[in-house]
């Protein structure tokens, strides 16, 4: 997952043609529609790559 | 919403919601000064002279834009207000050339008036002042922008009312100015010289060139009369000093032109004073014209005409009338010819309009504009086909623009881009000659999508069943190749026209000589019948005529087969009525038409011709044409005109006539409105009004006519003509123009026709097929009608004539 718009796995459905109302929250707190450590890990990796500490992100 | 109570200068008043403070004050007769306010334009709020004090408001309020609110207390001349107004005036004066002594606007200048009112005589700022060069690049008016106060009214008129868009604000701040794009000269811009800017400028920034130095406003006598050019018949004021017209301005409150004009009405009158005006009767002797007395001329005419009649019979005599003559002249002329025993009377250019007349006669049973010009401004859809109204009848162009501004759809079908195309919601660039196919296809779409007004069709028309079957062949897909349009375009245009509650069609009769255009008229009539767009306001079929009295001349019976009001000579009862009134025996055989004579080569028939204000030689090909040859070969030719035209040059007798501004008479415009025109100046030399010449001539023929003034002529004609029966000079003077049918004294006139029944009872659907024959070399647009004018009004000097073609070209976008 390189950008938040990328799907973390095939369960993710959000796109501009087929939007998911939890999209924004899901970027940082997700996955919301299903349980998956791997998917959560993908997100954490993305955030960590950019945010060096909690001052850089929202919590 | 209920009315609102406010107090203005201590006076309580109740007004409608949405009223501005300025309007409320005016209702009370309180005069708040304004520069940039114009009732026709959305309020600008620019000049700030109209500011008033509103209690509890933070700053002063511009009364021209501020709507009233309940309980508002307004002071229009408080100290604070007066101080602000003085400041505005002082600022304007500080940047304005104070040359009131020679300024043409002195005496009717708002800046001058308000400075007088508030005691502002100068400013002592002593700073920079504008120093712009004058633009006098064109033949008509001078633009001195040093005097401009940037009120913006001219911009509003040019952009919104007329649509020429020649001027706008340029630059900004202290160097802001009004002018053409890139500060070009007005001559090189899209200006059409309609004069609306000049008429609405509150100061002396715009001055007609001819007027400059010729007279002060208080030295001038204003006479209201009717413009002699096109069939709209705008009401104009002739400003006269020392028997000379020095300016023309539009009349403001009238239902025809409402304070608007075009270049022809505004500027096309200086021929009145031309040195080439005919001033004495002329008789040709040994190939040269010799001045004679009226008695000699008229006596000579009678001798020669009676000789021709003796030798060849009355059928050898022909009278050729002009659609520019007054009703009275035309009535007397056809009475004269008919009293001499023949029905050979016609007007040549009427022929251009035959398709319109014949087509409408067939479909409706009468031939005239079905609705009024003013109604166009309130229609919901306009379909313009084979016409260029902005060019041929500018007033109609302005009304269409207004309708579009108010939300109407504009559908234009033309091979070229005509003047209104920038406003069109639907522009169909169809192939010339395919107009009938398009209209039939539109009818097809309307029926297919059930957009027709079935109730109207059932109750008010006949021939629908056959029409429906015939039009089934014209599905839009089937005409795409012939018209060059897509199916969608045709469908959308049809829908736009048919779904409006009231829709108008505008076409013109073009320059045709071929019979092709009658088909188009019938096809358009079908469209109007199909959608119930007849017999109600702001709908209808508009085929406006070219010349100013084309309608009137036809109404007066200057036609070979009918008498006044289109009463047919074949009808015994009709002939008997006229015989009784005139004391003559009218021939029951219809006469020959001008077309018969000039085109269909029945030339040997006519031996003597009387021509009134017409110039067939110029219109039909010049000195080497067949028409010229025909006229040369006549035994006897009399021409009455105001100039020595090409045709007059061939005559045996030339009679000098008075021009429009020199005689009284009525004209009937294209919306059937009879309007009374007053003389403003005296005719030069021994020129006389046409009606007087014909009456005098009739006397020489031994006919006992007894007319003291044109009013008598009109009264006689009206008594014989049902449509005019209720119209008289008294009513015209008191009530203004009246639209026929006006059958009785207390009838108000008829703005739109066919409210109850059609002329023929029910409207008729006709089956129209095939191509509309295009005129060789020219599309079905109306360049021709305008150039007809130019050839008839050749008295305009060269620079003006070139501007007229400028006018034609400038409107092409």
């Amino acid at each position, binding site marked *: 997952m390189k*950008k*938040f*718009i990328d799907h973390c796995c095939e369960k993710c459905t*959000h*796109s*501009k*043609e087929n*939007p*998911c*109302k939890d*999209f*924004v*929250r899901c*970027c*940082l707190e997700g996955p919301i529609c299903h349980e998956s450590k791997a998917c959560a890990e993908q997100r954490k990796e*993305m*955030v*960590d*790559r*950019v*945010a*060096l500490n909690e*001052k*850089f*992100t*929202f919590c | 919403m209920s009315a609102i109570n406010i107090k203005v200068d201590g006076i309580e008043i109740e007004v409608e919601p949405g009223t501005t403070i300025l309007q409320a004050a005016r209702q009370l007769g309180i005069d708040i000064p304004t520069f940039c306010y114009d009732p026709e334009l959305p309020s*600008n*709020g*620019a*000049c*700030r002279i109209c*500011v008033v004090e509103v209690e509890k408001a933070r*700053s*002063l309020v*511009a009364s021209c*834009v*501020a*709507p009233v609110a309940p309980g508002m207390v307004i002071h229009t001349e408080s100290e604070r207000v007066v*101080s*602000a107004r003085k*400041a*505005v005036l002082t*600022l*304007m004066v*500080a*940047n304005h050339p104070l040359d009131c002594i020679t300024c043409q606007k002195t005496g009717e200048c708002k800046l001058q008036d308000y400075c007088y009112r508030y005691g502002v005589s100068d400013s002592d*700022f002593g*700073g*920079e002042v504008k120093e712009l060069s004058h633009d006098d690049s064109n033949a008509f008016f001078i633009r001195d922008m040093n005097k401009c*106060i*940037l009120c*913006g009214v001219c911009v509003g008129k040019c952009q919104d009312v007329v649509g020429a868009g020649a001027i*706008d*604000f340029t*630059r*900004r*701040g*202290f*160097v*802001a100015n009004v002018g053409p794009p890139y500060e070009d000269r007005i001559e090189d811009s899209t200006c059409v010289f309609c004069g609306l800017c000049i008429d609405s400028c509150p100061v002396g920034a715009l001055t007609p060139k001819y007027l400059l130095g010729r007279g002060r406003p208080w030295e001038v006598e204003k006479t209201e009369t009717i413009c002699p050019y096109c069939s709209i018949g705008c009401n104009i004021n002739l400003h006269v000093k020392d028997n000379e017209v020095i300016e023309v301005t539009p009349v403001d409150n009238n239902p025809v032109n409402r304070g608007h004009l075009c270049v022809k009405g505004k500027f096309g009158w200086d021929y009145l004073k031309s040195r080439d005006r005919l001033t004495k009767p002329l008789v040709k002797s040994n190939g040269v014209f010799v001045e004679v007395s009226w008695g000699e001329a008229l006596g000579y005419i009678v001798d020669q005409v009676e000789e021709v009649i003796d030798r060849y019979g009355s059928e050898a005599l022909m009278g050729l009338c002009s659609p520019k003559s007054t009703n009275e002249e035309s009535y007397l002329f056809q009475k004269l010819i008919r009293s001499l025993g023949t029905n050979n009377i016609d007007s040549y250019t009427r022929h251009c309009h035959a398709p319109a007349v014949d087509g409408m006669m067939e479909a409706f049973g009468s031939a005239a504009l079905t609705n009024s010009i003013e109604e166009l401004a309130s229609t919901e859809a306009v379909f313009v086909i084979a016409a260029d109204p902005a060019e041929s009848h500018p007033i109609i162009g302005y009304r269409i623009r207004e309708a579009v501004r108010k939300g109407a759809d504009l559908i234009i079908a033309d091979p070229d881009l005509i003047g209104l195309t920038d406003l069109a919601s639907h522009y169909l660039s169809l192939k010339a000659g395919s107009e009938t196919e398009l209209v039939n296809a539109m009818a097809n779409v309307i029926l297919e999508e059930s957009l027709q007004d079935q109730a109207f069709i059932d109750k008010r028309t006949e021939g629908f069943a056959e029409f429906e079957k015939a039009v089934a062949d014209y599905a839009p897909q089937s005409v795409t190749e012939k018209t060059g349009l897509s199916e969608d375009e045709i469908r959308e245009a049809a829908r736009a026209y048919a779904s409006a509650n009231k829709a108008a069609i505008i076409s013109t009769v073009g320059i045709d000589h071929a019979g092709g255009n009658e088909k188009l008229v019938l096809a358009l009539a079908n469209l109007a019948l199909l959608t119930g767009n007849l017999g109600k306001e702001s709908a209808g079929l508009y085929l406006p005529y070219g010349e100013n009295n084309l309608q009137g001349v036809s109404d007066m019976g200057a036609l070979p087969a009918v008498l006044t009001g289109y009463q047919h000579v074949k009808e015994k009862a009709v002939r008997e009525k006229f015989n009784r009134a005139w004391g003559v025996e009218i021939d029951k055989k219809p006469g020959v038409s001008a077309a018969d004579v000039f085109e269909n080569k029945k030339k040997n028939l006519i031996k003597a011709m009387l021509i009134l204000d017409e110039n067939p030689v110029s219109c039909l090909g010049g000195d080497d044409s067949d028409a010229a040859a025909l006229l040369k070969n006549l035994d006897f030719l009399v021409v009455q005109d105001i100039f020595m035209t090409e045709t007059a040059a061939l005559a045996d007798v030339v009679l000098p006539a008075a021009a429009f501004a020199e005689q009284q008479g009525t004209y009937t415009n294209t919306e059937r409105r009879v309007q009374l025109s007053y003389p403003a100046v005296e005719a030069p030399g021994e020129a006389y009004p046409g009606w007087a010449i014909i009456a005098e001539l009739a006397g020489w023929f031994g006919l006992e006519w007894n007319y003291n003034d044109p009013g008598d002529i009109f009264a006689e004609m009206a008594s014989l003509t049902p449509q005019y029966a209720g119209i008289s000079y008294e009513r015209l003077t008191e009530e203004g123009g009246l639209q026929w049918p006006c059958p009785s004294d207390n009838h108000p006139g008829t703005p739109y026709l066919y409210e109850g029944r059609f002329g023929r009872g029910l409207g008729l659907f006709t089956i129209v097929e095939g191509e509309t024959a295009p005129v060789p070399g020219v599309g079905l647009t109306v360049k021709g009608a305008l150039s007809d004018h130019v050839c008839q009004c050749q008295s305009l000097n060269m620079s003006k004539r070139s501007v007229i073609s400028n006018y034609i070209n400038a409107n092409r976008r």
Partner: protein
Amino acid sequence: MYEKHLMICGATGCLSSGSNAVEEALVEELEKHGIKDKYRLVMGGCPGFCEVGPIIVVYPDEVFYCRLKPKDMSELVEKHLVGGEIVERLLYKGPDVDAPARFYDTIPFYAKQKFNVLRNSGIVDPESIDEYIMRGGYRAFTRALNLDPAAVCEEVKQAGLRGRGGAGFSTGLKWEFTNKAPGDKKYVVCNADEGDPGAFMDRSILEGDPHSILEGMLICGHAVGASEGYIYCRAEYPLAIKRLRIAIEQAEEYGLLGENILGFGYNFKLHIKEGAGAFVCGEETALLASIEGKRGMPRPRPPFPAQSGLFGKPTTINNVETLANVPLILKEGGAAEFVKIGTEGSKGTKVFALAGKIRNTGLCEVPMGITIREIIYDVGGGIKGGRDFKAVQAGGPSGGCIPAEQIDLPIDYDSLNEAGAIMGSGGLVVMDERTCMVDLARYFLSFTQKESCGKCTPCREGTKRMLEILNRISEGQGTPRDLDTLDSLAASIKDSSLCGLGQTCPNPVLSTIRYFKNEYEEHINEHYCRAGVCKELFNYWIDQEKCTGCTACVRACPVDAIEGEKKEPHEIIQELCTRCGSCIEKCPQDCILITRVGSEADVSN
């Protein structure tokens, strides 16, 4: 994962100080050491402290390096990045700190600031929507979508957000008008035509955090019922326009702009319309005319834009900074946080652009209610050169000046209005005794004169005449009547102009006359400009007692108008002197004085 972030300021101030060259040098150094991949470089938004630019902030260490030059980069890379040691030489130093300061909490410029609107500026990559989301972006919008539009208006109203463009009208109330206006089609417009000379608050937000504006507009659109929006951005901000375009593209890709946004059935489309060099187009109705393709001239109101605005439809127009505040209010718990800052009548923070004779020039964001004293001395670091504070001009060409006597005035909408100034867009021009108040008024008026659209008589003609009078006064041609004329002309222009430009442009003149009438009178009656600005109205005079004869001024004078030997007191030849001021800048003894023409200095000056 990056080891460190290097946030290089790429905004106006630092760019003109050469941050581009600094960035290039940095990249070169990193590549030379082969460590470029370990560090994230962002040419980001403005940290505000333009006076000390170019600036690089190193995260997560939070070290603030300033006044950088390209040649400093090798030391920075080797010593700090590779060696792990802070480069003291490049830290902030100033008379307001005892030792070189590391970061925000130790630099006095930042001590009283609070970053709300500028929360992301200098921390995120402005061209990354992901970073904006990581910082909590678009959560406020999601929350707003779950609320009823009227409730959103109410929240903004209760939070007390007032328009940051200058007028200070209640934003929530404005939204409510449009929400209640009848009609299916409505518009939201962002006024990014920041025109006040010297103002660049909006520019920094647009360049540094463009998504905050998008989010603000989306929330506004939902609150008023609009489906389409325009950002009217002046063409002189090409970087802002570029960043906005990228942001819009990204938001469209993410489904945050377009149709059925996040499945709530909400459609919103955003366009950018570039201005064309007209200050007057910052006025609401002129701006709308410009978007409609017409000449940018104001229109009379009523009708108000809320009822009939863009293309005749109900429209809400908001300033950039106002919109940037909106997500802060709509986020979870945001409104409660927002009202804690500021005063009773003016909630939240305001971004100010500090300019003029102040030591710390740049952008600062402070809570409303901070006093002028605090801004000038705590944030601003006091007057440059240790001179005395004379006045501060607030609100640009529409504003007025606040004299030194009112130094404890709290800065909020209402107290500024009472003092005869306005908040305006937030420009603060600080003045010392070397600022001529007549010249200041003249400067602002010449700006508005050039920018007047020309539509209405009072503004078009009146400002020209006022300017002519001020010009005459500053050239020594003033007459006593001029002050009365200025007063009455200004009153008329204020009372009867069509739009805000005209109604407020006399303010600088009126407020300088109000507080500094003596200066005007000196100019007129004594032909004397005590600030030493109006060239015809003063002389320079060297104090013979204090002059040490160092010849610095002799060498500096471009027209050789100063005579004097070493160690001897120097003298200015008045006939040759052009009053260019080069000498007074160079004098180390501060012994060149300003005097009336043709007279010696009153040394008690």
